[in-house]
């Protein structure tokens, strides 16, 4: 037996010794293991799944809120239009979240090797890096809108469109800022995980294979970014158009400044600010 073989055997012997020690000292009984199974996983995918489910439930409550406000304002075209748009956005968002949750279920480690499992996870994170935080940010925005509508309903017993274009721009700015901040808060989670998995894959795979994966995902990311940007721009245009459309309505002109949805006296500013803080949280 040469020196190399001796050292190999030595390594295996030391490992065997360590294994026996572990077996004797660390063995857990089945009762203890069953207790551990009742605990919560700290795994990122599990956390994301739970958050998406909670968010979908929250969005369902928002739907109830919008339906309630619309029932109280059946003849109010502004409220009905806002409700319709928001319900459309929420429904689409819930559907997207359901698909995300299904994708997470599919990622459960089953019979695939570590390399392929990591690749699947990388694909998931790269494809959904913008969708996931955007879905959460939408909830905050919808909450802000329904909160504002309810506030005006309760305080003024009616909801009127904006007084002028400045009010609309301010409302929209708060909404967009809230979306952006919420988005930024949730974005790093995916970014960090992508970085970790890429590093692991780089370690496992040949460098040129990693390059092609990264290029492919980079292109997908850019496509998704473009679609997201277009959707946001369309959303802004629709919202601003709605506000401009209702500025000149007789109903609004008769109602007067006090009943304006964005009468920026101190009370409304404080209320809008409060909703904005909740939205940020």
């Amino acid at each position, binding site marked *: 037996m040469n020196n190399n073989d001796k*050292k190999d055997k030595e390594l295996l012997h030391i490992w065997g010794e360590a294994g026996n020690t572990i077996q004797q000292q660390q063995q857990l009984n089945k009762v203890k293991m069953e207790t551990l199974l009742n605990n919560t996983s700290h*795994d990122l995918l599990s956390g994301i799944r739970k958050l998406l489910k909670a968010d979908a439930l929250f969005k369902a409550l928002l739907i109830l809120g919008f339906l309630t406000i619309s029932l109280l304002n059946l003849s109010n075209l502004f409220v009905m239009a806002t409700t319709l748009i928001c319900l459309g956005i929420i429904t689409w968002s819930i559907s997207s979240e359901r698909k995300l949750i299904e994708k997470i279920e599919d990622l459960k480690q089953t019979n*695939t090797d570590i*390399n392929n499992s990591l690749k699947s996870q990388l694909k998931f994170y790269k494809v959904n890096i913008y969708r996931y935080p955007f879905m959460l940010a939408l909830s905050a925005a919808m909450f802000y809108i329904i909160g504002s509508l309810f506030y005006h309903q309760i305080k003024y017993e009616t909801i009127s469109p904006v007084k002028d274009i400045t009010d609309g721009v301010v409302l929209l700015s708060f909404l967009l800022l809230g979306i952006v901040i919420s988005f930024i808060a949730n974005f790093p989670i995916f970014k960090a995980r992508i970085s970790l998995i890429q590093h692991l894959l780089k370690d496992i795979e040949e460098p040129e294979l990693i390059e092609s994966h990264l290029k492919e995902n980079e292109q997908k990311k850019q496509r998704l970014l473009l679609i997201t940007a277009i959707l946001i721009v369309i959303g802004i245009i629709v919202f601003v158009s709605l506000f401009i459309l209702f500025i000149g309505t007789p109903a609004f002109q008769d109602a007067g400044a006090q009943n304006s949805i964005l009468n920026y006296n101190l009370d409304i500013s404080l209320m809008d600010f409060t909703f904005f803080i909740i939205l940020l949280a």
Partner: protein
Amino acid sequence: MKKIKEKFLNLIDMHQGIIHKIVSIYTYQEEERQDLFQEILLQLWKSYPGFKEKSLFSTWMYRVSLNTALQYKRKIRTEQNAMINLKDNISNYFQVDANNQVISLYMAIDELGQVDKAIALLYLEQKNYQEIAEIMGMNKSNVGVRINRIKNKLKKILDYEQ
């Protein structure tokens, strides 16, 4: 459901040494060990419905457990006291003298990269190259090259420690 859980726990009980060994090379603090053990157990339980019994249960366990350990978020160790703490932690874990060869081996393994740790463990568990390649999703020749590199590194560090 209860029967499935019972069957699962019986299988885990027979092979729980695998989880402990993986935990022992990826974490060195007691809190992290318990946390990672629990996390691996939970991941195994979640993935169990998908275990089709086409491969050995132990092979499947290695796959899931190592995948979990590779992505486990460890606490960042500052370099200053890292080596001292590591030696103490391993010494306490195995309840052996600080000069014991087991500690030297574990400290040598600690110097390997995350993926190399997984390959080293599988090699030390006497899995053949084909099995290691199937678990890791690498080609067999790549496994051979890496194992030789890992063995040389471990032996070099162990010789230095001695």
